[in-house]
């Protein structure tokens, strides 16, 4: 089978236009605004040609794009006074998850998310956003604080998966995730989850149980990585494309299946081409969602959340 083209090759014309925009913005010479607007239109035209042709394995590359906005950038764009909380009070602090309190629209929220890191150094330090048990237990701590003080919870999801390591198994990775699923299912404050990049299996789900699950247009969410699936079911690493297709991992597929509730549109070229617009779109939908949830009683929230996940799945009774 022929290997499909890399998204990074396909996006070259758009990336070049984006570079021109960045240069214009940096120089700030007279008339730059008009020039930038014209270039943005060109990006849009290119994207309209490219986007319909993108196959799921290329969407995965968009979701993993090294320039794609990361959790901390969302927090800084949408919120103020982010105060990070560290540690699970049991073993250590997991830098793959950032968590804490911040103001969102003038109200304290508990916010957290996988943080992959931008530079190579940072990526290594943050374990590429792959959490260990202490990360899930830090999240748990923050959930409980949120519940005690009545703060809504917002989570940003962007991980390839929970870390498969010796220490992770020794300290109970499975238990840490399972426990969060149970706790989040019953938490008596609103929870909004936003899948911003990679929704990698249980590692994503461990902070991914909410009243509303929002998902960026070019993010993916899957029971297993397309690579892992290809290796197990096809016994062939080059079957990633078929695996990605069969798994139905795109936002539009998952909306149809009832796994997510709303798609957050991305700007032409993808989130990394225009982070400002990405943040604006995310802000708008998160705010709308949270406003609706805050009007509900804690009992209704918990009952509706249970009912929402209760009905997921497809089977027949005969």
């Amino acid at each position, binding site marked *: 089978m022929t290997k499909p083209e890399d998204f990074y090759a396909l996006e070259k014309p758009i990336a070049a236009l984006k570079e021109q925009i960045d240069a214009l913005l940096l120089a700030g010479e007279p008339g730059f605004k008009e020039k930038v607007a014209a270039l943005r239109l060109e990006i849009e035209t290119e994207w309209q040609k490219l986007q319909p042709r993108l196959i799921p394995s290329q969407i995965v590359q968009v979701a993993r794009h090294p320039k794609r906005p990361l959790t901390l950038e969302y927090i800084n764009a949408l919120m103020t006074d982010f105060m990070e909380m560290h540690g699970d009070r049991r073993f250590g602090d997991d830098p793959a998850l950032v968590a804490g309190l911040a103001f969102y629209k003038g109200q304290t929220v508990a916010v957290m998310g996988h943080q992959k890191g931008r530079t190579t150094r940072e990526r290594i330090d943050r374990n590429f956003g792959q959490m260990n048990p202490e990360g899930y237990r830090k999240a748990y701590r923050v959930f409980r604080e949120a519940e005690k003080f009545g703060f809504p919870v917002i989570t940003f999801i962007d991980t390839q998966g929970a870390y498969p390591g010796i220490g992770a198994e020794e300290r109970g990775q499975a238990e840490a995730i399972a426990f969060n699923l149970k706790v989040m299912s019953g938490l008596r404050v609103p929870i909004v989850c936003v899948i911003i990049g990679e929704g990698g299996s*249980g590692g994503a789900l461990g902070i991914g149980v909410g009243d509303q699950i929002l998902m960026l247009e070019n993010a993916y969410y899957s*029971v297993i990585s397309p690579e892992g699936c290809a290796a197990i079911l*096809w016994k062939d690493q080059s079957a990633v494309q078929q695996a990605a297709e069969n798994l139905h991992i795109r936002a539009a597929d998952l909306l149809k299946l009832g796994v997510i509730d709303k798609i957050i549109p991305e700007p032409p070229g993808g989130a990394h081409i225009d982070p400002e617009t990405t943040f604006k779109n995310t802000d708008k939908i998160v705010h709308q969602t949270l406003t609706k949830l805050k009007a509900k009683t804690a009992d209704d929230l918990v009952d509706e959340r249970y009912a929402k996940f209760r009905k997921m799945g497809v089977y027949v009774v005969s």
Partner: protein
Amino acid sequence: MSSLWTRCNNCQRILYKEDILDNHSVCPECAFHFRLSASEWLAMLYDDGQFDVCDHEIKPQDPLNFVDSQPYHKRLADNQRKTSLPEAVVNGLGTIGGMRVAVSALDFAFMGGSMGSVVGEKITRAAERALAEKIPFIIVSCSGGARMQEGALSLMQMVKTSAALGRLEKAGLPFFSVLADPTTGGVTASFAMLGNLNIAEPNALIGFAGPRVIEQTIKEKLPKGFQRSEFLLSHGMIDEVVPRKNLRPYLVRALRLFLNKSA
């Protein structure tokens, strides 16, 4: 080899089948625990081997039209034929030590005991039945994890089942998780680790990530005994390693203690 004889997977000795069956499907020579089917588990745990089967009418679909080396719907049909089961879990209802208990047992022979929509739904129904009847709940896990062929729908069953167990806990009803070889992935990372007691069979492989995936990630060999029951016991993840012949009496005692019913 005649059908009266079989070879132990562990010590390689040729054994008389009757002797193994008389010994709870444990090798009389080396104590290797042969894998049990869901029906065998239920028959072994319930009083006199008697129980009602529930939710048998719930059957799988192929919501994603998933095709790998063969279409998922064909794989399902083959597994149904092979195991005579509609899916990878059997829900039972009956008494253990005279106490009414709901038990769900996963069957590894059906697609590796993997959890798709039906397994999630049936586990949830069993938990909700236990809640309605105010009785304890036991799950015997033996599974490779979430079923890939149902994509994210399988992943969501982890939430559904864990949420149902949360409700059981809130109502003060005990839930025990029995872990058999192997229990990994999305099953371990949901209901299998949420027991008020987590109990494992000897030497069962129990973990989140599979050993091969870990080896590939860290690029080193795993220590001996890694992710085995005794390893989990020493790391505080399970309450006890219980040999099969002791399991029923262990559960009867556990039920009595949790239900505050002295003999």
